[in-house]
């Protein structure tokens, strides 16, 4: 019969090792999300490009990264790239693989946002003498942003959880650290509870942040009020999906 030691959980939570691990998890998620957004925006624009060859490039990328598991992509980047002379740190590998994977999903979000801005809006902007990039920058993207913020928040929360996969390529993030800590004294319950507390803390903060961001945007647009529960439900409905 296992007994639970609360003092040990608290000790783990406040230990530098767990704190650093949580920081690593957060950093990997943030950078993967950032680069994923950049890639997604680029791919979304390629998909809308005038030239067919560019659209094919985007298609190929989506096909590749949506058609294989992200765990496969991680292990591939970590184990295959060095044999081509490309030796990256675990952290870089993790960011690279997660960002490339994320980009394939972000592209769809970005595209839906861009598409949601009606063609009449672009026409009106062009009629005022704007160039294509000005139409994008001043008319389409600001409106698309309001549409894509909720799904991007969900992606961030999903990414935080997805980053646990990185433990398989020896990056000292939360799950690996918790697992290693426990393997020395077999206090799995306490070590994993400490990691779980960190995960919940971070996802909760993100949900709150997401709520305020949406609230601020809606207040400006004076749309219907949204409830925190909508956001939490919306976030959990989609973020746990398996890739």
């Amino acid at each position, binding site marked *: 019969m296992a007994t639970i030691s609360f003092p040990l959980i608290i000790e783990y939570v406040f230990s530098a090792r767990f704190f650093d691990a949580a920081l690593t998890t957060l950093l990997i998620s943030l950078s993967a999300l950032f680069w994923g957004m950049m890639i997604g925006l680029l791919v979304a624009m390629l998909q809308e490009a005038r030239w067919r060859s560019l659209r094919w490039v985007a298609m190929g990328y989506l096909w590749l990264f949506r058609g294989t598991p992200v765990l496969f992509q991680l292990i591939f980047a970590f184990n295959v790239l060095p044999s081509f002379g490309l030796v990256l740190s675990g952290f870089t590998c993790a960011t690279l693989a997660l960002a490339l994977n994320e980009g394939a999903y972000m592209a769809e979000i970005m595209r839906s946002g861009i598409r949601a801005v*009606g063609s*009449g*809006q672009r*026409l*009106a*902007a*062009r*009629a*005022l*003498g*704007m*160039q*294509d990039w*000005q139409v994008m920058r*001043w*008319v389409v993207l*600001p*409106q698309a942003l*309001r549409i894509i913020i909720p799904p991007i928040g969900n992606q961030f929360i999903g990414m935080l959880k997805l980053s646990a996969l990185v433990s398989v390529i020896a990056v000292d993030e939360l799950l690996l650290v918790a697992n290693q800590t426990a393997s020395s004294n077999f206090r799995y319950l306490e070590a994993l509870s400490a990691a779980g507390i960190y995960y919940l803390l971070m996802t909760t903060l993100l949900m709150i942040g997401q709520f305020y961001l949406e609230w601020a945007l809606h207040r*400006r*647009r*004076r749309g219907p009020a949204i409830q925190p529960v909508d956001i939490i439900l919306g976030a959990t409905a989609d973020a746990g999906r398996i890739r």
Partner: protein
Amino acid sequence: MSALLDVVGVYKRFGALDVLRGVNLTAHRGECLVVLGASGSGKSTLLRCINLLEPISSGSIAFKGETITGSPTNAHRANANRANANRANANRIRQQIGMVFQSFELFQHLSAVENVVLAPVRVKGEAPQEARAYARHLLAKVHLPDKADALPDELSGGQQQRVAIARALAMRPELLLYDEPTSALDPETVGEVLQVMQELSDEGMTSIVVTHEMGFARRAADRVVFMEHGQIAHSASAADFFGAAVPERVARFLGGIET
């Protein structure tokens, strides 16, 4: 009066469909031209061609004596430089030709005054303070002095369309194109938009108005043009158009609208 706009023999094909079939149209400075015709007769397409939003298939359009679009024999084969030059040219022309759309198309994320200042600041590089002051002047001109900070959502259709007119005016255009500006409006707000359009015309703004508002055509138009099957079927001064003998098909169209 000198010709501000000269449309000569313009054809526009969409695939196998000839939307414009040799349109000739001249607009003089200060003139208000009303274009009538059944839907599908090519009126809106004509406006878009004039504003270079649609490339023409053949013919030519001159604005202020300069040919702004001709009929390059191999337009689709034009090299990248040529295409870029065309695009820059189109942007320059569009800054001088304002357009008002049936569905207003105010930028939804911007307030009324921000809608008006966006293009002058970002496209023309005007100083924001001055652009803003001019925008407020224009909003007063369209009788919306106290709606500067309202978002499009908070305005009625008629108010939105008047903001859209102010937005077009902010680029100080020499020609204003109206594409069925009141067709999407509730009847009670049509009048306020037509009134603004007439006031602008009375001040000397050159305008081409595609509309079904016969009352406006009677009151404000200098000339009325009737389009049918992609051609100008009849063109006359407003007095003649509604007074003297008109071709039978025009009479039938007018009868259909007014009864």
